[in-house]
């Protein structure tokens, strides 16, 4: 009889042990400052957002936009991927003088025509509409980025770069996994950007001869609009798809400051669903 009672009590204690610890007490501070964006836990993915800053070396208002992009980069860190695209009248180099550097690219020119920017600087945040417009003044970037970075990650992109310093040949392997089924077809664009380029820039205060140009679009490994993800661009949950490219880094580019920027977008809406960046030389 006694044994039976003891057995019952033990069973109850074991049962309650399953339930009692089920409470998480959060201590102040309840809000943690996020520097460098949200860092994904093991096996987790976060939404990484592409911010395109359309600019020109002869555009006096453009450095303020670059500053805004830099500020957002300090807030979001790896969660924000920057692309500085020199396009339009302000980017045309002069035959002589301060502005002889050529930062224009065929891809930048195509995008400039496609999105039809009314002026510079202008930006795109994930090529998605914010408050009724896809083309955004720099003052809207922060709010648009806040929305986009809070979205659930739908795609994971893993970039693996193999760079041969002797031949300057870059082999890039892209593994893309859709985390859920999605309508439409998807392309992946693989661009090369370079940072730390010192050359003149027009500013509101006059020409800055030692201006540092960062995240400058230098070229593409698969054209302006990229290639379909995998073989057909279908977004089927769990499917791991690969794309691979080779590219020779031209003389004059500093490979140590170059990185590969890849992003996946919906070919109907043009909206970017995931972006990723990886240095060429680790």
């Amino acid at each position, binding site marked *: 009889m006694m044994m039976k009672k003891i057995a019952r009590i033990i069973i109850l204690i074991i049962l309650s042990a399953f*339930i009692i610890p089920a409470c*998480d*007490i959060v201590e*102040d501070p309840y809000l943690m*400052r*996020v520097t460098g964006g949200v860092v994904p836990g093991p096996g987790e993915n976060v939404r990484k957002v592409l911010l395109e800053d359309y600019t020109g070396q002869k555009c006096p208002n453009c450095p303020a936009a670059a500053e805004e992009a830099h500020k957002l980069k300090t807030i979001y860190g790896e969660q924000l991927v920057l692309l500085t695209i020199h396009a339009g009248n302000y980017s045309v180099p002069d035959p002589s003088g301060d502005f002889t550097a050529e930062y224009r690219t065929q891809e930048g020119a195509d995008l400039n025509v496609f999105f039809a920017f009314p002026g510079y600087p202008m930006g795109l945040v994930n090529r998605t509409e914010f408050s009724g417009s896809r083309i955004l003044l720099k003052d809207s970037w922060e709010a648009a980025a806040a929305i986009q*970075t809070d979205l659930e990650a739908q795609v994971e992109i893993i970039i693996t770069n193999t760079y041969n310093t002797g031949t300057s040949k870059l082999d890039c392997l892209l593994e893309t996994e859709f985390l859920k089924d999605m309508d439409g077809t998807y392309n992946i664009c693989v661009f090369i950007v370079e940072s730390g380029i010192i050359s003149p820039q027009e500013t509101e205060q006059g020409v800055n001869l030692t201006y540092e140009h960062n995240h400058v679009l230098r070229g593409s490994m698969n054209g302006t609009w990229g290639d379909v993800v995998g073989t057909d661009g279908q977004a089927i949950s769990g499917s791991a798809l690969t794309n691979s490219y080779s590219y020779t880094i031209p003389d004059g580019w500093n490979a140590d400051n170059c990185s590969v920027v890849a992003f996946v977008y919906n070919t109907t809406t043009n909206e970017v669903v995931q972006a990723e960046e990886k240095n060429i030389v680790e």
Partner: protein
Amino acid sequence: MILKKFSILILLALTLPAYILAQEIPGNPTVHGNFQIDAQTYHPDEALGITDSVLQGKTMRLNGYGDIRFSMWRFNAGLRYEAYLPPLAGYDPNYQGQGIPYWFVEYGDEKLQVTAGHFYEQFGMGMILRSYEQWDLGYDNSFNGLRVKYSPVSGLNFKALIGVQRYYWEPFADDNRGIVRGFDGELMLNDAFNALKETKTRVILGGSFVSKYEKMRTKTLISDTVKYEYQLPANVASAGGRVSISNGGFNFYTEYTHKFNNPSAFNNYIYKDGQALLSSLSYSQKGIGVYIAAKRIDNMSYKSKMTELNNVLDINFIPPLTKQFVYSLENVYPYATQLNGEAAIQGQIIYTIPKGTKLGGKYGTKLELNYSRVHGLDKQAIADSIPVDSTGTLGYKAPWFKFGDLYYQSISASFEKKIGKKVKLNIEYVHIDYNIEVVEGHPGAEMVHAHEYNIDFTYKLSSTKSLRLEYEQLLTKQDKGDWAMLMLEYNIAPKWFFSIMDQYNYGNPEKNKQLHYYIAAMAFVQGPHRISLAYGRQREGLLCVGGVCRQVPASNGFTINISTSF
């Protein structure tokens, strides 16, 4: 897939009784069920603002269900089919669809009972956990999981459950809502201890623990160009205790629930703990009943999905301390429980003046008085620089014995008397103060002060035929102004019923809204079967049951209700 398998099992179980009966196998197999179909047509009505574009072609809507229970020996099973094609106006449109949202199998004896599938459960008064279904509200927060009830010795009962709650028709997948775990113990002292068996004072003690696990998604806040991430608890728990003491006609009950940090969309993501205390004392004996109760709740919305704001996925239920009125115009201003904080008291006396006395007359006279008052909490800032209810903070301080704005007050008195063999009279007066700004969420709206008078007169024409006349008047200078209602009802017991009714908003400050809401209705009853038909206008307003409300839009059309049970 699993649902399909269980449905087949249950259908098999339902066809078994005939076979079993034929074989005369003991076990007393029984099948019960009930069905209900509520359908309505919707017609454009310019005066009510209902146009073809409002109706969007949905001119006929239907809610219906069939509920079947089977029991044999120590085994129970059941299922409920539901259809909302599309849901009647005023019901959550997310319910559109049809299927079997509820099925269960259950086995047990006096000691142990196990339920698999869907079930409803309540711990104490429900302030920590209650799942229930209310057809009129379109409310269903049933659990789908496992439940064990265990009674090791006489007077001691335990319940443990785990499950996910109904979320319209959405199956549980991809962590789209939380998992609820609960444990409850109840000790009936007089049954558990022999020495107390004969004691007149009966004492019941109870305690519960409930926890919700939900996969937390990243939630961020941008403030002054700085990005913050909320530290969200994946496991949110609450614990509670209760005592019931009764002696003769007296009954005292008190229950306290403490909920730990539960930032959610409902409370603007504040981290304050929630608290709820409800106490009541009642006395009743032949001819008299007295009830007083007090309640204080603070930050007590507890849902199994952090981001949910609709009337779904509630883990708990806060009982109202306001009277549920019966007459139409009394319910123009019903009270909806304010889960983010309220303090309430209620007092009620029901007295029957005995038969044969001067005031009681030949049949006795029933008098009822009720008083309810609800205030908000006195919410104070936790620091000078942090406004009340600021997200990502403790939200506010609320001293226990300080109260905020008046939310609701009602005083009602009713008099019910049978005069001779043929006449029955019920007269009722209600005064309501209603904070429409808070209860219905109309910013800046003035507090409504309303007087409501009812006369309900029944005249028996013969042993089966009766005529009932109901006159109601609501007087107020606020909101939609004065109303009057007249209803005439003719009953031919037990089969037929006819009525005509008009509610007239003659005092509406907007002349074009001084409308008549007329309804003609009839019903036919035969045993358990009931068919009723009605045509007319329905006024817009809140429909509340137990302080849980839904908004009913104005409509114009035919209604048919069919119900039966076996």
